[in-house]
């Protein structure tokens, strides 16, 4: 099964690359861009569980590579098309090991001339996630619109809205009349962010987001969650007696990051994320995650 999914990913990747080459071939006046991010990621509550006994933490190695094409359509409009691949390799919970490939399109418009001109960006991204555990496999879609402005060379801010959708392949119900498509999710978010460059090298950024939509919690059998769930499936990634539940919930996310520029093309980035979710059935859970990544752009 894992092999079949890999084949599907390879096909998707080659199709995406062909589309990108066809589109990009239309303009000689465009810049190729290559991005690589690699590092480590830690999450204090991978299960999104609220009972301490069910909480599982782990660390993963993350590698993300993207190849893109940017074209200035006019002096105020830019279009970026990119394909990317990402892998996550977990230390303990290997069922979460991930390989995904995707494509992204970003259109950006500036309302005027100069760095201080406000801008709007609209983006759409799609990807296929292939996890070692089949339960989480499926496609993803992310559409967002963002409005922002750089007020000084050091300070910028933006806010936006986002719609995310995840399509589950696995449908193995464990309870009659309740779907097994736990990872068929959708949600809407609003977010605001700001960044401040303290000096030539150090940049701090903060982001607050509120998301309303489907969330997944993995716990041992729990009646309260069971009653509130829209989908349930066995989740052997965390143990034989764990089940994943899909719930409706509101997630508040606070993110802070520090980026240390090594040169014009690379940086070391540290990100801390605090995520709190209030879900149906009185379920409340919290997770802290952090990542330390080396980023390189060309």
């Amino acid at each position: 099964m894992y092999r079949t999914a890999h084949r599907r990913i390879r096909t998707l990747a080659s199709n995406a690359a062909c589309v990108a080459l066809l589109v990009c071939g239309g303009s000689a006046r465009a810049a190729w861009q290559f991005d690589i991010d690699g590092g480590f990621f830690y999450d204090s509550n991978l299960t999104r569980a609220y009972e301490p006994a069910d909480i599982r933490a782990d660390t993963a190695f993350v590698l993300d590579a993207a190849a893109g094409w940017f074209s200035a359509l006019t002096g105020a409009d830019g279009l970026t098309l990119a394909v990317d691949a990402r892998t996550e390799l977990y230390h303990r919970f290997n069922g979460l090991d991930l390989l995904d490939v995707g494509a992204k399109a970003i259109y950006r418009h500036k309302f005027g001339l100069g760095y201080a001109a406000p801008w709007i960006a609209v983006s759409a991204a799609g990807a296929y996630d292939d996890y070692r555990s089949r339960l989480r496999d499926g496609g993803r879609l992310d559409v967002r619109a963002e409005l922002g402005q750089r007020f000084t060379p050091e300070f910028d801010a933006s806010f936006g809205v986002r719609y995310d959708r995840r399509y589950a392949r696995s449908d193995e119900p464990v309870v009659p009349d309740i779907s097994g498509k736990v990872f068929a999710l959708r949600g809407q978010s609003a977010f605001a962010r700001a960044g401040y460059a303290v000096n030539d090298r150090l940049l701090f950024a903060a982001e607050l987001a509120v998301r309303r939509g489907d969330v997944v919690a993995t716990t041992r059998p729990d009646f309260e969650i069971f009653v509130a769930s829209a989908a349930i499936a066995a989740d052997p990634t965390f143990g034989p007696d764990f089940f994943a539940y899909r719930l409706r919930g509101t997630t508040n996310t606070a993110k802070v990051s520090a980026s240390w520029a090594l040169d014009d093309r690379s940086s070391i980035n540290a990100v801390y994320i605090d995520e709190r979710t209030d879900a149906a059935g009185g379920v409340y859970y919290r997770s802290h995650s952090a990542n330390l990544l080396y980023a390189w752009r060309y």
Partner: protein
Amino acid sequence: MRWLTCVALLALGVGEALAQTAEIRAKVTDDQGRPVEDVVVVAVPVDGAARAPARPRETTVDQVDQEFTPKVTVVLVGTPVSFPNHDNIRHQVYSFSPAKRFELPLYAGVPAAPVVFDKPGVVILGCNIHDWMIGYIYVSESPYFAKTGKDGTALIAELPPRAYDVRVWHPQLDSTEESTRKVVDATRAGPVAVAWTVKLRREAKVRRSPAADGRGRY
């Protein structure tokens, strides 16, 4: 015979005039003693009698690897400057500076006409596609100027011997250009050394390096 005498006298005159030129050797360091590159050094005759300049020659400010090259350019007022684009992406060069407001609509290669910088002052260049791109054109009212190299030194040669008001400018200068003014006595032929120690502030430039969330690229 008379013709030969004329030539000899003329040659003697030119030679003497050259022998009587002065030069100013400027050295600029920061407050930690490090040489400062890209400092514009301008000498203005105290008596206001600058040599009438020939028609200024065209200068270029390139765009290479999505940066202005050179970053600091010094030209005489009235100089045409062209902005060839050597990148494989189009640029839109502009300036809001009072000394020259202009905009070159999105272009690749070499724009059709150069921009003439007809007012003295500092012109800050930007690109509307790549916000991190920043360049400076110092438009001098005096024909006597130079720019420091990596070693922090600059040479203004072939100056008519007289006294000069000499001042320096740099994009990160923490004081006014006027406050750097020094009167330099170059009435005798030969080099005169002048030194400045300047305090530099942080450059007002949008960061180019990748950020944690991948933003800021375009």
